[in-house]
């Protein structure tokens, strides 16, 4: 938390009041230029945007991220760490928590297997490609609905997105392989 806004903090107070003024102007524009039926639609779309993002999008991404990588706070285990202590360190992870037999623990522990850096690079690649997809997937959908003339949405967006994911997948495999070799050498 931060210091609360106090009336003596003139700059911040003025900014907040100016901000509220702009918001009010925006609301005034909505009320005067958007028809009543449309205002209801607008309200539904605003609510849907928040619900879809906060209630669906983020939880799904969170679960996917945990399945693939585990929680982000996990520190890098010492290279000298035995697989037994690594198991302890990773005990809380979703996959590890499935009580796999000890023999398989080394495999389920991605950090020990590939090294932290290789995993971080892979995750960054996947995050970037997913963010790009957030823009392109609606485009592919819109293209599927059909365009009014051939100069609108003329590209092979699905093909290009597949190529992008192919490049990301190939780069991830390379990075993970390098990480795997480096981690083995450290042991």
């Amino acid at each position, binding site marked *: 938390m931060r210091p609360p806004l106090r009336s003596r903090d003139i700059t911040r107070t003025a900014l907040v009041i100016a901000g509220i003024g702009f918001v009010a102007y925006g609301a005034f524009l909505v009320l005067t230029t958007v028809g009543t*039926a449309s205002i209801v639609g607008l309200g539904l779309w605003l609510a849907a945007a928040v619900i879809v993002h906060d209630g669906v999008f983020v939880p799904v991404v969170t679960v996917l991220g945990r399945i693939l990588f585990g929680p982000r706070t996990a520190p890098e285990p010492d290279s000298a760490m035995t697989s037994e202590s690594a198991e302890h360190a990773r005990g809380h992870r979703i996959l590890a928590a499935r009580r796999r037999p000890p023999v398989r623990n080394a495999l389920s522990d991605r950090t020990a297997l590939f090294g932290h850096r290789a995993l971080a690079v892979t995750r960054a690649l996947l995050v970037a490609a997913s963010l790009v997809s957030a823009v392109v997937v609606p485009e592919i959908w819109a293209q599927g609905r059909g365009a009014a003339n051939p100069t609108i949405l003329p590209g092979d967006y699905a093909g290009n997105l597949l190529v992008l994911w192919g490049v990301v997948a190939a780069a991830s495999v390379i990075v993970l392989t390098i990480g795997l070799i480096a981690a083995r050498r450290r042991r």
Partner: protein
Amino acid sequence: MPRRHTPGHLPNDRLTELRSSVRERLGAPRPQSVHEHTPDSTHEQTTYSAQKQTHDSVRGPRTAVVIGRLLGLTFVLCFATGIWSHYLQDPLPWMRFPTRPAVLYQVTQGVHVAAGLASVPLLLAKLWTVYPRLFTWPPITSAIHALERGLTGVLVASSLLELTIGVMNIYHWYAWPFSFRTVHYALAWVIVGSLLAHIAFQLPTIRQHWRSRPSPRRGDAAVDVSEVDTGPAPIDRVQTDHVPADSVPADHVRTAGSDRRAFLASVAAASVAVVGFTAGQSTRFLSAFNLFGPRRYGDGPQGLPVNRTAAAADVLTTAADPAWTLEVRGNGIVHGFSRSELEAMDQSTEDIPIACVEGWSTSARWTGVRVRDVLTRSGIDPHSRLRVTSLQTRGGYAVSEMGPEFAADELTLIALGLNGEPLDLDHGYPARIIAPGRPGVLQTKWISTIEVIG
């Protein structure tokens, strides 16, 4: 209990990092969400930095500030260029606009859409970094806090919707039950206002995390904590004594830092990729990388993309009618110009881009008569405000207005030809308006009348 292992005299970030690493090594379950109540979680909630370090090395004020700055920049670019575009289309009576450079609107609207597209990864990342704060407990601590959270909700909802409909609009996917332009414009003001308030509320956090975490010195750490951690709730001030750097396991700090940097790099890469792979729709320079642009530079009949075809505007018969004449009305007199009469006048050839509100643009070589010549021939002062009406009976933008600064400009043409050929029917045959520095929706096609309105 693992919490007993918490060391007592460390600066906040390190304290929590160490704490989490201890839990980690003991295989203890960590708190999974911010609103979990444990005896010392009250303390954790009062300190933003503590909160973030406990749960996710990426979710924290430093990440939020770094992404917030970029998002603030793209939002300001969008707002400024959006206001420009808005007033070009709906000018107040006293407004005059520069007509040079001719590519001005191509640039401003290209920036508008590029910055909007870059904002998508940035906004998603920004919301990701602060998501746990949605569940802050107690949800409201004071009237001011309620105001802050309310305005944050307004900011989040309107930003999400603004970008959603903006992106869908450039894909021609009009799924919403309201007018795009009025809502996109009104939401822009709501966003700017709530963003201003958000910055004001967060100013101390922004200032504290503007630069990356400085190396911990005794004074700094103590000042940092006392400056920042005086929330409305009673505060448990953390005593921060100096700790030698080597007393905290270096790899844990490094890991958290590198996670954060990797996250920021991926978000930056996504924003650059989204812009780089679409900007080729508005500039020949990048057209080789146009993987995802909704338009293709130089595509379409006569090397120019089309928004509304002649068929869609329902002008196939009226535009092809040999009896077509352009009516010019002013001072109570009506002058008629047939296409051959226009062709017989002084012709100019100019390179002027068609720049759409959707951000795509293509430069083209137009041939035709200067509007000011036609006005002079009709006994009208070229410095007049004009209303141009199209033959089209279907779809919007059948009527446009033109300020005197555009009417009198030597680049403003009644175009009859395009790229060396007679104008294609889809580009406005028999005649269309083309003027420098204006949105494509004002470059009225299939014109039938030009009248003086002031």
